[in-house]
């Protein structure tokens, strides 16, 4: 079923929804952007549909809601580690199609990798329902179509904003009663079917080519360009890495929190062990790791899709103007050449 609602009517219904749900959406934080007099658009709890920034892509992804930047795991004393509490209320979060795919990638990491599901991820993830926001034309750094993440059916509600009105598809039956007396409409969300950017993915066909990809001089160009700041991974909806540490509350350090905070494979200490030995020492090596992680390793391990969902936020946020799309296209060009060389060497005619 779909409905046509004025924003004020929607706000009334939202108020009702807020009785049982915590609702997150991209919001504008005026003048809180990286540079002076620029805004920051990121997720937070909304009170009105007018709070939702729907006509811009958020700088940070909705993953913050499910995989918080800082999350307490345990409260400890000298004698025990006690599991942290969680707000039991279900969560509704306004997202883009690519975000839904991105969160599916997080599901793979947190719920499937290893022998058991991550209890902290699961306890938040289980309560989340998606409200899909249409993208209109999309934005100039998007490449969801290339990644196959431009469409999805995995949502509870879908919305199109149209000035003082909105169109809402209600898919999840549990929301139907709420809208029973609203004016119906003929609405299904439309998905972006072409981006301004096209990204070609590297087709690494053999072990030998993979080794040559590792040795490409391409990566060295990032030694001077990339700051290893991790702004790209912080914005990324599918980046999942974290670091766990203990924090004492008190001077004597006898009680405190064990918590996890996001980590980034671009940071120089990511692979450094106690004692100081690290494995990926240059920005270029770390860029190579991240790139292959996003478009090769993840698929090699789990099959199916790549980890990157083409949201383009990494490009939007890179202070050095490194475009991930351009990086991928450059890499794919090199891989084509390596594949052709390999084919020529084995005598297979091309």
């Amino acid at each position: 079923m779909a409905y046509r609602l004025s924003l004020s009517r929607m706000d009334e219904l939202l108020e009702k929804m807020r009785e049982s749900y915590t609702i997150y959406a991209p919001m504008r934080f005026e003048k809180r952007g990286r540079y002076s007099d620029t805004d920051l658009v990121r997720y937070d709890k909304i009170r009105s549909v007018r709070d939702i920034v729907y006509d811009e892509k958020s700088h940070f992804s909705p993953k913050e809601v499910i995989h918080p930047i800082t999350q307490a795991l345990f409260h400890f004393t000298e004698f025990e580690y006690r599991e942290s509490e969680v707000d039991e209320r279900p969560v509704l979060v306004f997202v883009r199609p690519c975000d839904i795919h991105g969160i599916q990638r997080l599901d793979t990491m947190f719920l499937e990798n290893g022998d058991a599901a991550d209890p902290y991820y699961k306890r938040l993830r289980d309560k989340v329902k998606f409200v899909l926001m249409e993208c209109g034309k999309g934005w100039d750094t998007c490449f969801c179509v290339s990644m196959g993440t431009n469409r999805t059916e995995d949502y509870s509600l879908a919305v199109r904003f149209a000035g003082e009105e909105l169109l809402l598809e209600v898919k999840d039956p549990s929301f139907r009663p709420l809208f029973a007396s609203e004016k119906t409409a003929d609405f299904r969300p439309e998905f972006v079917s072409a981006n301004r950017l096209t990204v070609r993915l590297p087709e690494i066909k053999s072990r030998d080519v993979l080794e040559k990809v590792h040795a490409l001089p391409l990566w060295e160009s990032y030694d001077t360009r990339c700051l290893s700041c991790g702004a790209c991974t912080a914005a990324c909806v599918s980046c999942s890495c974290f670091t766990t540490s203990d924090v004492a509350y008190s001077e004597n350090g006898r009680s405190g929190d064990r918590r996890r905070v996001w980590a980034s494979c671009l940071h120089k200490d990511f692979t450094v062990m106690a004692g100081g030995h690290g494995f990926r020492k240059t920005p270029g090596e770390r860029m190579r790791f991240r790139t292959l992680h996003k478009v090769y390793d993840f698929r090699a391990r789990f099959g199916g899709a790549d980890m990157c969902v083409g949201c383009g936020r990494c490009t939007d946020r890179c202070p050095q103007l490194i475009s991930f799309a351009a990086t991928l296209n450059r890499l794919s060009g090199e891989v084509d050449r390596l594949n052709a060389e390999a084919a020529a060497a084995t005598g297979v005619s091309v």
Partner: protein
Amino acid sequence: MNHDIDIKKLQVNCFRQSKVPGEFMLQMRAPGGVVQAKYLAVVQHIADTWGNGQLHLGMRQTFSIPGIKYENIEAVNEYLRGYIEEVEVASCDVNMDVNEGGYPTIGARNVMACIGNSHCIKANIDTLSLARKMEKLVFPSHYHIKMSIAGCPNDCAKATFNDFGIVGIAKMEYDYDRCIACERCVETCASHATRVLSLENGKIVKDVCCCVGCAECATVCPTGAWTRRPTKFYRVLIGGRSGKQYPRAGKIFLNWVTEEVLLAVIGNWQAFSAEVLNHQPRYLHGGHLIDMAGYEKFKEWILKGVKLNPEAEVAERLYWTETEYRSNIHVKPVCGVD
């Protein structure tokens, strides 16, 4: 040639005497150092028609056009009318009569500024709009004052070497939960600023006393944990100057003042100058007037009626550190001089 020219009068009219008798250099104001590029045609026309075809980018961000003959000054002034109307009155809302006589005074000098946050990634303030507001407050006035506005504590605008130097600063806010302990801000504050940040217990602590408000931390923070408070803040340095006798860097007079406070202070400038000079404008720059009044008196006059914002800090006293080209320069005869 037999000249008989009142060069003082021309100086006030913004024409500077040349070593070639009878020639002058026009200094055209450009508040904040920005004008529409179309005015280059005006500049070119003056230089080609009445000047010697050259343009000097003036040290105080004026368009300086040398080689103008005395007999052409009237024509130049008439031609300038449109420029002054548009740049001073229309853009800066300066309260003045524009006529065919050119600039009415050279007293308050062109307000300088770096490009500011309309372009620069380091800037914390919109220097241009501030320059225009300040132009309205000080021009036209016969009291001499040099002011410059820097978008951030890098001070590319050399605010430190002006009578009044304004530096755009930001109050930083830290979102504890957004911080991922990457220490980018710690490293950047140490290498670019005052080394006031450190990582303790997995989060950042700050030695607030000495933060210069540059916002480098916000610029590098990958998660947006550091952000600028939306309100703009300013640092005001006073008494900086160059010169043959005792040049010196300016000292901090006000810190963390809001725009409202800043403009109220600048608004008091003319009254302060009039008080010090007995309502007789002289060719003496602001720093000298502060010296004459003494810091205490200056502070009293310039803050008259100004309601400071809660964050504002005011210098209790100032310790000048002049470069004394001649030692004992402050030791002067007390009797026998007028």
